[in-house]
């Protein structure tokens, strides 16, 4: 009798709490995978300047080198997910949240970031700066 009542009570609790817990965790909504996009027009950025842009729902960083070439990297700091910025005065990428530094190629060089930033390919096509993932 005790076993029957205990099992019934347990099943009732499970039937109440399971849907609640599933409800609290949001469903996986796969975002449209953007593997390539135009980040701007060639010449919008001055040499030794950078800008953050949205790339497939994530912030990315486009840097114009002093020789006119481009670098594109993920702008999400590998430490705790803040959005980094390019510091022309230091010629480095800086995360203001915990004072982490990366070089222009995204290599972590000082502060707490444990890994380099992901890098993307950049091509200039008909005056557009096109950034693509691998």
């Amino acid at each position, binding site marked *: 009798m005790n076993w029957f009542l205990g099992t019934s009570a347990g099943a009732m609790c499970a039937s109440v709490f399971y849907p609640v817990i599933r409800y*609290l*965790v*949001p469903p996986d*909504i796969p975002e449209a995978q953007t593997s390539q996009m135009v980040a701007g027009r060639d010449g919008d950025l001055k040499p030794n300047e950078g800008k*953050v*842009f*949205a790339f497939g*729902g*994530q*912030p990315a960083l486009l840097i114009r080198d002093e020789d006119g070439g481009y670098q594109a990297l993920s*702008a999400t700091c590998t*430490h*705790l*997910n*803040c*959005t*980094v*910025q390019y510091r022309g005065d230091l010629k480095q990428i800086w*995360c*203001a*949240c*915990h*004072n982490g530094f990366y070089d222009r190629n995204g290599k*972590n060089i000082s*502060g*707490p*970031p*444990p890994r380099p930033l992901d890098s993307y390919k950049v091509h200039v096509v008909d005056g557009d700066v096109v950034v693509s993932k691998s």
Partner: protein
Amino acid sequence: MTTRERLAAVQEWVEVRVGISQLIEMGREKKVPLHRHSFWYYMGGMTLFLFGIQVGTGILLLLYYRPSSGEAFESVQFLMTRVPFGWLIRSIHSWSANLLVFVLFLHMFSAFFLKAFRKPRELTWLTGAVLLALMMGFGFSGYLLPWNTLAFFATQVGTEVAGRVPVVGEFALRLLRGGDQVTGATLTRFYGIHVAILPALTTVILGAHLLFVQKHGMSVPPQVEADAERAGKPLGSYPFLPNFLLRDAIGWCAALGVLAGLAALFPWELGEKADPFASAPAGIRPEWYFGWMFQTLKMLPPHILGFEGEVLGILAITLGFIIWFAVPFLDRTPRPGNRVTRAFAVGGWLALLYMAVATAMVYWPQ
């Protein structure tokens, strides 16, 4: 029937149904110990008073606030600039939140150093520690609600910290953010947490905490007990009602004055609207009570013994909280001269010193 008679009739009606005179008698019989550390007894009442201010001003803010990423910032801006006394209500809410956490820290550390957690008050300590966690949860969830840049990145980092906890991290991160990123879904979720879930939990835990305080009375520090015993004199006390409550009320009036002064002289800033695709601005930092954790994560090197520095840091902080919660079960028979008691007292001072120095470093000009 004269007005006086009518009032007496109403009083009699209420008395029969509620029994107010019994409650007053109970308050008169309740004694508060009087000794050199009695001042710290006022911290609990002060925390409760400031929590009451939070509830009152929070309800008023709800009347204008709109919990969506498209409207939250604008609704707070409207409240601050167009609604009569809107700036005052929001500033008092923000300042009072900070004072509340500060007084709560005083309350907790005084209970710790005066050994108020010892038998039979273990559950009073535990419910108090849970209340502290809940208040910090209020601070963290409320910080995002104006949807400004500072709040956006504080939430980004704070939720990421939860996400780095081994095993449960990913689940916790999605649960908190309402998705993989900090978005409008996070704002709506934090709003629900701030105005419904945390208040409901606080009501239950606060009720239990007050019940335990009422049941066991105020704790007398072991050193004071030992001194009184040695001197052969019984410890003095005075009634809760009216003596203690009136002194409490003086503190509350002073706190209200301080809050009004702070709100009028330093209205709480709104900042700039959050842009999920902007870089984190220079000088970004969390609220002061999260400062020591922020600074710890900032100072740790990228790798320690093959592990990522921040993961070890987060584990160490979690372990620290677990030890703090378990204090009554680790320092079981605190008395002057006991080795464990002395170790815990030294540990407590070191923890306090570390928190103070790390917090100061956050505000130290670089």
